[in-house]
């Protein structure tokens, strides 16, 4: 099968993630959708690394994972504080700041 399919797959995953961010309310889920997008990117990178026959792509992928991990730390911290003070993880509740 053509290696391009990986690209299509990753593109689809990315889109799913993006749409997820837009449609889902729960902060955690939204955040996971973002993670999904990141991983889609990773998949793309790896695929290209294969196509191009250079390792850089995979290196980037590793970096991405590390960075994503950091993001999780920070992100969860924030989400948890919000949850504690609001007793809800719905991002639509957090809309004091507007206009």
């Amino acid at each position, binding site marked *: 099968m053509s290696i391009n399919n990986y690209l299509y797959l990753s593109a689809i995953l990315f889109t799913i993630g*993006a*749409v997820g*961010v*837009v*449609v889902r*309310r729960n902060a955690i889920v*939204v955040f996971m959708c973002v993670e999904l997008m990141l991983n889609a990117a990773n998949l793309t990178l790896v695929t290209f690394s294969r196509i191009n026959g250079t390792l850089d792509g995979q290196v980037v992928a590793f970096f991405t994972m590390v960075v994503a991990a950091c993001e999780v730390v920070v992100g969860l911290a924030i989400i948890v504080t919000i949850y504690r003070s609001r007793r809800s993880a719905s*991002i*639509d509740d*957090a*809309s*004091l*700041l*507007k*206009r």
Partner: protein
Amino acid sequence: MVTNNGLVYLIALPLFGALSLLLLGRRADKWGHLLATALSASSFAVGLLQLSQMLGRATENRPVTQKLFSWISVGSFKVDASLLLDQLSICFVLLITGVGTLIHIYSISYMSHDHDRRRFFAYLNLFIAAMLLLVLGDSYLNLYVGWEGVGLASYLLIGFWNQKPAYATASKKAFVMNRIGDMGLSFAIMIAFASLGTVSFTGVKEHAHHASEATMTAIGIMLLVAAVGKSAQFPLQAWLGDAMAGPTPVSALIHAATMVTAGVYLIVRSNFVFDAAPTAQLLVVIVGAITLMFGALVGTAKDDIKKALAASTMSQIGYMILGAGLGPAGYAFAIMHLLTHGFFKAGMFLGAGSVMHGMNDEVNMRRYGALRKFMPITFITFGFGYLAIIGVPPFAGFYSKDMLIETAFNSGGTKAILLGSTALLGAAITAFYMTRVMILTFTSTKRWDDNQHPHESPILMWLPMAILAIGSVTSGFLLSRGSALKNWLEPLFESHGEHEELLSPMVVSSLALLMVALGVAIAVMKYQLSDVDAVAPQDVSIFTRIARRDLLQDDINEALFMRPGQVLTAALVKVDESVVDGAVRGIGQMAISSGSTLRRTQTGFVRSYAMLILVGAAVLIAAIWVVTQ
């Protein structure tokens, strides 16, 4: 041309008087009037001096000039402040300063009770100075300065008692209507500069021949407009009647003897223009003819003695303009009538003033009557003036007016017949209304109640009247003896061949006298033999009513100009507020409202922001895609 450094004093003396009296203020109250009179008199003396010198010189170098300084000089537009005194202007100089001085003297007593007398004399001097500048300026622009200067002086004097709203309005009216005339003058100057490249009398005279007739006609018509404004000719005559708001000496000096005749001066001075522009000339005579009838008719209906005299002034100036419009043949006679009129009309105004003085400022002739006994001197001097104006030989008016009528008849063509007969008819009507004035005031039965104590005026007042009366008796005879004035002015005009005589002088004179007699007779029957009621009867013919309303001049002006003007102003004020400024404010509002609309995109929901980003990304990709393809 001969230069003479004395000319400036003619103007400087009265100007100095005006300034010092105004600047010193109340400090000069004690002696201000004396200073002013003295200065005016000395200016007159200078005038006489100049005359004697001029007489001593040969005809060709009688005109003298004095260059004071270079006034305006930009590119080819060069105007010096310089004066020109020639045979024409000397006449005016003497008239202005002479009559002016007399009226100064008269006013000393006439205004003695007014605590602003000093200011009055300051204005008088200011007027003398401006008027002299008007007749001495050697270019149209210099003349313009004097032209508006006298306008200012007349504004100040008409409004001298401007605490009375009506008087203030009258002065404003005079100034504005004069400005319309002044506009004509500035047009004339612009055209002269644009087409001839000069605005000096000599310069324009040189080019007059080889400029296109159209140009000269344009200049001529514009000068006529100016003359019409200043000389209260039809259709800009409406201000003169109201101008009688000013103290009577003012009416005598400015609105009878001098300023209002400036128009005649302008036309005669510009003879070279009108000689080259027949059309303009025709217009001049038409205006003159219309106005002389207009004034005469109004004069028949006025009960206010000053207004009656004002109407007569208008009509008499009509005669002069008519004469000036008749070309070289008429110039001299126009001037002559101007001079004689200066004497008798000033005299009569002063007489009127003296009557008012004796009658507690009552101006309604219907409340006069039988004053002959109470103020004999006034009666006599006024009478001489009267005889002069209606043109009874050998009084001044007879000579000057006859000449005009004669010239009118001999100006050739059907035009001549029309003008001549108009002039004749005018003479008759003049005789009628002046007789009316005479009778109502002096001879008819007493119509004033007993709290009036008519009395003769003090010498300071009757002396000038007497002198002017003498003038009105003799001046005509003197000026026309051996056609002295004609020859005197001759060199200034280029004479064309005389027209064929339509009527001989004898015939004209006799016709004129006939008409006069007619007019007098009617007046006598109507007012002397039948008694007059003290209040103007209201059950009068429509014509009388119209005549009383100055032939509806004010109604017409209001309907045609004032009201529309007010409407336009009001409209523009609204437009400025709502449309012009509204547009600007609208733009501001637009920005604000669009801002608050766009603001709604900021919903506060993370998901909508994410949506925005997503869409944005999509659009971005699409855009780049489109461009790439």
